[in-house]
């Protein structure tokens, strides 16, 4: 057996194209998924006060269904299932939708833990001072909750980025698709997968560093406080 990485050189373009796709899928998913999670967490939190028990139940079901089924099945359900219902979507849109729904559910649950651990008195004090529920959520509850669960949030975003390798299975030209493509041409499976795996590892490290950089800015107000 001999390893020959030079057989990869003619395919640098394919790897780059795949890398770009994986990166932008991850960036869009991170932003949209966290936004979705905030909305879900707010709606679920609110239903404890209001009469909207149905909404809370539905959101709870959404979170549980996503958390207890594999991402690849969610992806296939959206990509193959929706067109059968007459809603036709491209592979890229299906991939993005599946990733956002996935991250949204996990992050909503992570955020909920953060919100639950916020002192109830803080929320009550905000309401007593005349802030609306939304204002209290936005200014008093959300940021401390975020900063408390930020490490879990980073891990979850990395898990979703790594999980995005699966979108290659519906022919989205991501990093994994590029690897499969090259493997089918030069039959150097091991070399290709080894290199691409290392690229994923670097992406994971990079994503963590980026998150930590953003976190230091975002939560500067908590510096010196407990975390």
């Amino acid at each position, binding site marked *: *057996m001999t*390893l020959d990485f030079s057989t990869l050189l003619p395919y640098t373009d394919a790897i780059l194209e795949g890398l770009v796709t994986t990166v932008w899928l991850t960036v869009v998913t991170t932003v949209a998924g966290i936004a979705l999670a905030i909305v879900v967490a707010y709606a679920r939190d609110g239903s404890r006060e209001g009469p909207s028990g149905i909404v809370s139940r539905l959101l709870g079901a959404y979170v*549980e*269904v996503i*958390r*207890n*089924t*594999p*991402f*690849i*099945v*969610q992806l*296939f*359900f959206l990509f*193959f*299932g*929706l*067109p*059968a*219902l007459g809603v036709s979507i491209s592979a890229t849109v299906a991939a993005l939708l599946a990733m956002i729904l996935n991250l949204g559910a996990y992050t909503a649950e992570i955020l909920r833990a953060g919100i639950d651990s916020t002192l109830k008195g803080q929320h009550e004090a905000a309401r007593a001072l005349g802030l609306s529920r939304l204002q209290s959520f936005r200014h008093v509850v959300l940021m401390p909750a975020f900063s408390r669960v930020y490490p879990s949030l980073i891990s979850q975003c*990395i898990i979703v980025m*790594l*999980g*995005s*390798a*699966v979108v*290659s*299975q519906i022919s989205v030209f991501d990093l*994994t698709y590029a*690897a499969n493509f090259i*493997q089918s041409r030069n039959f150097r*499976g*091991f070399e290709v*997968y*080894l290199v*691409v*795996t290392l690229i*994923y*590892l670097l992406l*994971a*490290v990079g994503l963590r560093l980026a998150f930590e950089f953003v976190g230091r800015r975002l939560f500067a107000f908590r510096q010196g406080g407990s975390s």
Partner: protein
Amino acid sequence: MTDFTLWDIVRNLLLAGRWTVVLSLIAFTGGAVVGLVLTLARMGGLWPVRWLIRLYVDLFQGTPLLMQLFLAYFGAAVLGFDVSAWTAASVALTLFTSAFLCDIWRGCVEAVPSGQWQAARVLGLNYLQSMRHVILPQALRLAVPPTVGFSVQVIKGTALASVIGFVELTKAGTMLNNAAFAPFTIFALVALGYFILCYPLSRYARHLEKKLYGAGIR
């Protein structure tokens, strides 16, 4: 073309679901054994051992499970072994599971207050005795909820074995869909299958966690 009744679909999915369960059990059992050895070696070993195990954990946690499966499947072929999808999936999922369990359990051992260590050593227990009689019993209580929780990730992880041609629940779903073309029904049923396996475990993990916190131990 033969017509597929709903029962045909459900029956075939149930038959394939057995292999999801079997693969999950193999991965979880194998992963627990390897993970335990790694945890113990990491706690007591010399720094090069600790460093290597940490690298091992980081590698598995920082790369896609799908890539690990591809490497096990194609990599073994390059090394001259002719492995089946069964072997490749079992090996990759076992190593994947061991890395995550090692990380979870290390956290649990470290969560036992260091005073307990010191007290045990002062009382004349050696490393292994302290571990066996003082630290592990306490760490075990902490470890059960996250370990049960992680088993859900293992079950979901087996779905990726479908990509290297292992016929389990997900692969059966795509094969049935190619023949019957009822993607909405079939993938909803596949998802239901996983949900039935995973949801009770998720609930149980949460229940255990609440009980632990309720007992005032963190």
